[in-house]
């Protein structure tokens, strides 16, 4: 199926209202927002935010995510420690859920994004359809990795029994929230059209036609 892209027609789509306009026009003739052929500095932005997420991911795992003050005795727990504790206690399914959403999803997201950026930068000829699916999943799953932060936030708000039992958030909770937010922004600033752009370049013309 021969496809004609907007770019090849020297047309750019508005980011906001998706109106097609000539690429040399700087503002959308319909809504007046700034117009680019592709998202501005998409790769660099995504990469920078990904690095930020990586940096934040370190304290998120090292430092305690919450403190439990029980009868004057303070107990600090971090994410991996909590998972190990749950496995020791026999709650393998719960441990698995926490592990998937708190460890696997954020790190998987980071890796997927890095992979996408890397392939775009290299004009990789790998199946763009597959990579687009990967991007969609990453974008969709992004909001669900906040589960951990939500749990801590709810516990901190709920459990305040004076001197008996108090739960306080740790520095890791903040870092973890940062990781999730930054990766979401990173996914947002990634222009998925770049995946397909490599198809338009000469040499790969015959494949698309």
């Amino acid at each position, binding site marked *: 199926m021969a496809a004609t892209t907007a770019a090849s027609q020297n047309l750019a789509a508005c980011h906001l209202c998706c109106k097609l306009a000539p690429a040399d026009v700087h503002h959308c003739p319909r809504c007046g927002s700034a117009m680019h052929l592709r998202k501005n*500095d998409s790769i660099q932005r995504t990469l*920078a935010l990904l*690095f930020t997420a990586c*940096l*934040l991911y370190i*304290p998120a795992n090292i430092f305690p995510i919450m403190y439990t003050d029980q009868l004057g005795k303070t107990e600090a727990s971090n994410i991996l420690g909590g998972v190990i504790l749950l496995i020791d206690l026999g709650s393998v399914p719960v441990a698995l859920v926490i592990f998937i959403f708190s460890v696997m999803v954020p790190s998987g997201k980071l890796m997927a994004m890095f992979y996408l950026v890397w392939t775009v930068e290299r004009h990789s000829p790998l199946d763009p359809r597959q990579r687009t699916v990967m991007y969609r999943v990453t974008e969709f799953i992004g909001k669900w990795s906040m589960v951990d932060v939500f749990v801590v936030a709810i516990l901190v708000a709920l459990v305040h029994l004076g001197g008996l039992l108090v739960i306080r958030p740790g520095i890791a909770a903040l870092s973890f929230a940062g990781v999730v937010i930054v990766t979401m922004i990173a996914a947002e600033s990634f222009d998925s059209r770049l995946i397909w752009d490599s198809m338009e370049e000469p040499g790969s013309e015959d494949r698309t036609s």
Partner: protein
Amino acid sequence: MKTEQAEITQGRKLSGIWIIPLLALVLGLYMVVHTWMTEGPEIEIAFNTADGLVQGKTKVKYRKVDMGLVEEVRLNDDFDGVIAKVKLDRQALPLLREDTRFWVVTARIGAGQVSGLDTLLSGAYIQLAPGTGKTGQRKFVALEQPPLTPTGAPGLRLRLVSESSSSVSTGDHVVFNGYRVGRVESMKFDPEDRQAHFTLFIDAPYHQLVNSATRFWDVSGISLSASAQGLTLETGSMDTILLGGVAFGVAPGIEEGDPVEHNTEFKLYDSYEDILKNPFRYGVHYVVSFEQSIKGLLPGAPVEYRGIPVGRVERIMVKESTEMSLQEDHEGQGDPIPILIYLEPGRMEIGDSDASVEAMKNNIRIGVANGMRASLQTGNLLSGAKYIAVDYFEDVKEKSIGTFMDYPTIPAVSTGLQQIEQKLSAVLDKLNALPLEDTVTSANVAIASLNQNLESLHTILESQSAQQLPAQLDSTLRQLRETLSGLSPDTEVYQSINSSLLRLNRTLGNLESVTRTLAAQPNAVVMPSDPKPDPVPEVRSR
């Protein structure tokens, strides 16, 4: 001129978005540095057991201020102890020195005191006591027992050595004149030199009482000893009887010495008696050889001069004596037993110095020339303990000070049974010398004349008149009885005598009242007496 065309290249513009990871990096670095800066040292303390140690709960305290937390308790590599990993606060860093001590504080009830009751509720904690050595130490060995002296307490730490068995143990009191001034900090028996080593701590104002002339003795329990002086029962205060203790002081008559340093070593004497026996520093050895049994004479027995103790028996030189006897020219001669004695001039109150030793030597030399001799005396008949008495004897062969194995000797005289034997034989000799035979013959003559006298008396008694004497005596007695029977209570004579006596009695009674009046009122003969009117009770108006 060739115009060069500027080459325009589309350089990769660095997006401003990179500020965000840079910011995160800076923030992260700041956090790492901050944590590293505020993080305290992590140390390892080796314990014997993990008794009272709880991971993540047991605290480390110094002056009751929290200094850290036990993070991990595990067995050591040899499985013969426990290692506690402790995370300390940064402020504890200067407290970690080479000789910093740690111990577990739990509730303790000892013979002397009760401590750490607060740990019953809060749980045990590790006490830190900073040392004074180099800083930087990270591995420590905990004390099994809390140190008895608080860290940094002013005072004096001393070492004591005891050769004999004693009942002094850790925690015992150190007393001076019965007052508690310190305590025994540690006790260790060294199997190599077979001595017990003690560490004492004398509290601050009292450490001035200790000087180089001070002697320490064991006042633990009750000591009962029998010696030449008799039985001695010694006790300390109730505390020391029950718990034991160490007393110190300067023996009477001794001058105070110089101040002492930390960790000076002193000898621990068994008893106060022991110190009284050896309070002096200067003395001189002599040898006394006895040609009699020395049974009952023990090392330590007193040497007395006219009842005043001047020294003691050091030892009986059996070895030297035997060696000498085994020499050829001494065989079968029955050598005397040499006794080594130690005389101290300090006991004679002529001072404890080298000069007085010389004076004493000189004195003894002159004394021996004038009949001064040593003799063996029984001090206690019950125990048979003997002592050596030095005194002047008359009728002794002239002798002078000799030498025996490089020691000067004091000549000895035999005493005791041997002396009694000598005296007895002297008495017998005198008895022998008496003119017994003459006496016996004259006595015989006297007895013969006495015999004659008795015979003549016999003839007198046998004569006629002597035979009639009893009958005459009998008739005389009968007449006397008749005369007396006239005076029996039924007779008139008796009655009249009786009534006369009664009357006389009454008269005497009257006379007595007269004399009493006269005695009270001598003028009653001339003046009439004025008796007082009878007292009449009065009516009192209300």
